[in-house]
């Protein structure tokens, strides 16, 4: 797997072998009481965010799965996390992530992308900010 992450506004790539690379906490089960310190959350596409308000407030890594690249729910979940819940931690997407979509995912507030090898090329990092001008302001 390849991880693309944003550092100082610049996209960078590295190879990783766990989805929570860079975070020490394993995935927290939603049924568990939040532990003190940071929490890693994995949210399903049909998640009811309002039920998880407290966990979201404690999370430092949220994992979002893109089941197929045409499933747009992740974009609205990310935007809602940033806009409604003021979530400021790492927002990482994995699953059927295609390089032609990472710019839009980024603009919805996702700042960390797990890509399969087939979706990674030398050009992947150039997919960000392909447009000098956009009609919308970003959610990030």
């Amino acid at each position, binding site marked *: 797997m390849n991880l693309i992450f944003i550092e100082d506004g610049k996209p960078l790539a590295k190879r990783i072998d766990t989805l929570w690379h860079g975070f020490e906490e394993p995935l927290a089960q939603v049924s568990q009481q939040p532990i003190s310190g940071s929490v890693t959350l994995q949210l399903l596409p049909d998640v009811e965010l309002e039920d998880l308000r407290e966990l979201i407030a404690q999370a430092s890594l949220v994992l979002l799965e893109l089941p197929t690249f045409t499933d747009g729910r992740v974009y609205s979940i990310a935007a809602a996390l940033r806009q409604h819940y003021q979530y400021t931690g790492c927002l990482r997407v994995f699953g059927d992530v295609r390089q*032609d979509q990472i710019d839009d995912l980024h603009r919805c507030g996702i700042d960390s992308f797990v890509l399969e090898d087939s979706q990674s090329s030398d050009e992947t990092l150039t997919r960000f900010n392909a447009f000098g001008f956009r009609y*919308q302001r970003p959610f990030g």
Partner: protein
Amino acid sequence: MYQYSEQDQQFLQTRTEQFRQQTERFLQGQLSAEEFQQLRLRNGLYIQRLAPMLRVAIPYGLVSADQLRTLAKISRDFDKGYAHFTTRQNIQFNWPKLEAVPDLLASLAACDMHAIQTSGSCIRNITTDPLAGVAADEQVDPRPYAELMRQWSTLHPEFNWLPRKFKIAITGAPHDRAAIEVHDIGLSAFNEQNNVFFRVVVGGGLGRTPMIGTTIHERLPAKHLLTYLTAILRVYNRLGRRDNKYKARIKILVKAMGEARFRDAVDAAWQPIKGGPDTVSDERIQDLMRHFSQPDYAFVNDADQQAVISSDGAFHLWRNRNVLPHKTPGYNAVHISLKRPHTPPGDVSDATLEDLAALADDYSFGEARVTHEQNIILADVETSRLFELWRLLVSADLATPNRGLASDMICCPGGDYCSLANAKSIPVAAEITKIYEDRQQEQRLGPLSINISGCMNACGHHHVGNIGILGVDKKGEEFYQISIGGDSGDTGNGAELGKILGPALSRQHIARAVLNLTQCYESARAEDETFNQTLERVGLAPFKTAVYESEAI
């Protein structure tokens, strides 16, 4: 016309280059067919029955003379010398080669046009009243709001992968000429003490499950337009069905949740962003309005102008039918019918596009409008020049005096072109045109909408035609189902869906059936009742009898 800024132009160039690279990667095998399909759809490119089809947006129906010339040139360079105006203020080319599409898009971009989001599960071309800014009954000019929504929806990062396509229409007049109640979102703007508000209608649509939309906000202040739209789309994007494409439109979600729950969900999504950065200031609207070229109207006395008009009978027939009143004294909106014998509805040759461009330049400040009925309007013509314009229209075969009459049919491309169609629609339109070739007959009938779709996707809006015709497949044979009593909303009484008359008819019987229906209407109507008013009074039965018990069928 809305004048593009340098930013707008650069944006289009970048988008074109992006698609050029994607096409190259696809042709080199670096991009899968399923992924490229989604990317090309969002650039207006379908692969059709015979060849690719490219759908070009004409945002809210406004097109300049220069753009019409570009479209004519594109039809020559990339197509077979013609193009087709659709029912959503778009224009389609039917034969471009896949490899050539990036060049075609570059030609469009050079004249501020594009095919962005004219297909795919995203927000489609924003449509509006073709008489925006000139209609005598208008309360609010919808154009700056339509442009605001064009910008907001263009490559919106959050809403590019919706459960299904999403259509927004806006009107600012009590006579709804944009059919807003049969759109995913319909906006009806009104003015109260110099403040603009919208009635927001959600979940209308035609297709397999036709529905009139539900009003979820009676009085939305204009400044909240974008945040409220974002909330609606966010709810739909999260909760709309993705397991069945026939149940994926927002109308199904609204119905499943019920009006109250849907409204509450939108409100919950709206509160955190309401009043936020996407709030629309008055200055923003004024700035957008300044980007529209304003016709330099002469101060003319309409009464003086009337005096110079000819008494030619054919001219008067055309004028009474095709010339519409204008806000500004001494000016008129001229309706140019693209429903002519021997030409499929909405089709134009490159020569006709050039003719329209020249007429727009000479008679209407270099601008034309496209209507959802697949016709053209020159919106700013001086009264004293109507006769001379009419003579030129006659010589260009563009003066058919049939606006809103039986032969002014809305018709999709149907089985001749479209791979979704169950039946052909263009030949049916041709047969119906033939029965009304005697113009007096249709003039006598008065306003009557006949809408034809080649399949239940309803691109020909058959549900909202006074007479709707739907192509169906019966064991490999083309049949047609008739419904009557539909209304798109332009009468000012709200939209109405037609009722199915009875069993589907074969192709050879369909034109005759339409004739029988209109004869039934003519003999049953009281005074100047419309078709739908007569239907309401006498009921379905006499019409059924006229179609199913006449000797010819």
